[in-house]
């Protein structure tokens, strides 16, 4: 079982984002970057599949700046076998550009399964996984919450509005991971030390032109601080009054 996991280096969810002077990108100084949380599910799923099969290879692939090596090493510390960094200095915001660069790497890789997180928490595109599947002409299951592998085919469950959708598909395939697919492991200390010795290939890539241009980034308006009207049942009349007259929700 040869599995590719495409991962992304994203700002930590707790980071306070500042918009850069150009108004179209974020100011990365002082920002802590992490492995995209949805990609953690993808990495974990790949590791479990390999462990269950007893053999195979898990390759993590990232497109990004040199610093994304650290993100790849996080996945290697979790247990992936080797990493590939498609090195591009510019921060790529167009998912089709990312997808085409990944496809060039994935096409002749002989992968049985290509895994993604269902979205990257920095741009929320939900797009790169399905685009890669389309370009590779492979079936795609997005936002999978459960996966079962059979001989040459697989079934997956997707949590859709009000129910569960069960899909069957042939392998190889592309699958994007939803929360709940598994419980990602922590990189254990020995894994962190072992990751330093695992192969990590850096391949500079030339990105093709995309069709999407970011014009402006803006922060959401600041929320007003909450107000405590009182405690216990005695506060209820004041709360109802505020909900009626100020919030106008009653």
């Amino acid at each position, binding site marked *: 079982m040869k599995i590719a996991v495409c991962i992304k280096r994203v700002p930590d969810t*707790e980071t306070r984002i500042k918009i850069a002077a150009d108004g179209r990108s974020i100011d990365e100084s002082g920002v802590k970057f992490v492995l995209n949380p949805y990609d953690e599910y993808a990495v974990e799923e790949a590791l479990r599949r390999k462990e269950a099969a007893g053999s195979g290879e898990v390759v993590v692939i990232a497109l990004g700046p040199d610093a994304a090596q650290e993100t790849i090493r996080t996945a290697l510390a979790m247990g992936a076998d080797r990493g590939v960094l498609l090195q591009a200095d510019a921060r790529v915001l167009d998912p089709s550009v990312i997808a085409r660069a990944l496809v060039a790497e994935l096409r002749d890789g002989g992968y049985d399964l290509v895994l993604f997180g269902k979205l990257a928490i920095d741009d929320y595109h939900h797009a790169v996984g399905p685009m890669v599947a389309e370009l590779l002409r492979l079936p795609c299951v997005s936002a999978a919450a459960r996966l079962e592998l059979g001989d040459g085919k697989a079934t997956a469950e997707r949590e859709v509005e009000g129910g569960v959708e069960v899909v069957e598909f042939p392998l190889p395939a592309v699958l994007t991971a939803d929360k709940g697919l598994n419980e990602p492991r*922590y990189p254990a*200390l*020995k894994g962190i030390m072992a990751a330093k010795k695992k192969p990590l290939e850096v391949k500079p890539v030339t990105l093709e032109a995309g069709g999407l241009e970011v014009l402006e980034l803006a922060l959401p308006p600041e929320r007003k601080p909450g107000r405590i009207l009182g405690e216990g049942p005695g506060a209820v009349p004041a709360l109802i009054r505020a909900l009626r007259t100020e919030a106008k929700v009653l």
Partner: protein
Amino acid sequence: MPFQGVDFYDTESLFAEDERAVRDTVRRWVDEAVIPIIGDHYVQGTFPLHLAPKMAELGLFGANLPEEYGCAGLNNVAYGLIMQELERGDSGVRSFASVQGALVMYPIYAFGSEEQKQRWLPRLAGGEAIGCFGLTEPDFGSNPGGMITTARETADGWVLNGAKMWITNGSTAQVAIIWAKTGALDDPQSIRGFIVPTDTKGFSAKDQKGKLSLRASDTSELVLQDVKVGRDALLPKSGGVKSPLMCLTQARYGIAWGAVGAAMACFAEAVSYAKTRVIFDRPIGGFQIQQARLADMLTEITKAQLLCVQLGRLKDRGSATPEQVSLAKRNNVDMATEVARETRRLLGANGILAEYQAMRHLANLESVYTYEGTHDIHTLVLGQAITGLDAFR
């Protein structure tokens, strides 16, 4: 919300990528597994032993010992960051790991035979065996050389007699490192270390009752009554009171980092409380008296962080001295106690509740202030280093 750390001087840039990765793994685990449950364990007076298998799986025991014995093989800075994060959870959890790594695994590693290392270190690293360290006695704390526990050689091994006090993990442990005199009671050079399985006949452990500090930790008294062990129980390379003191230097090094963790936890709590607690129609963080408290805390934590990093680099170079470790342990634990106390005060009445961390850390740190070389003894160690004059012998 995961812990964000306290880092006013960009100490982050002083750590290598793998050191940060180790810290982040432990930080995340402490947030998820320790913080939510520790207050209850503290109030109940129980050690959360269920954490031990996961600590072993993550590789937290003896993490700075070599990989060939099943350990993580980390450098001392990464090891220190582990201790920092564990003690951010609770001093009891850090103590558990300190004892296992620095006081049980380290002496086997440093003074044991190859056979002893192969036999015990992987089991201790894997958490299959928990260890304790028996040095202190009811009447011999700061003066361990005066101990009266004895080991007498017989035809086929040793017989140990004596009592040990204030032994972390004492009732939990499957194995104890016992220090005893093999010669005359007035000869501290005859002190040797022994690996004693705690199910050996004549070995008993009793939980220390009535603690108001380190409540989420097993502190016990050990009694050894005609405990017979084989020849292979002796740590062959141990010799004199210097051997257990070398172990304590390892543990104290971890404590210097751990104290920073406790202080960081308190500081974060103080800042959060100061910004949200409204009195006289505004957050108390807007009052000068609380700002002075917070400024002092941040300053002292920052100094202690820098002390730790440099001490760790010296230790990795092999040039850290016991006196340098004394300075860091003494300063950082005193600093953390002060930060915990000021946080407790800043929190007002809420500060006395187990729901908040400050008073738990404060009470814990009063023990840490006293154990592993009391604050006062470290003062005298430094006094001796400065003047060349010995104040306590």
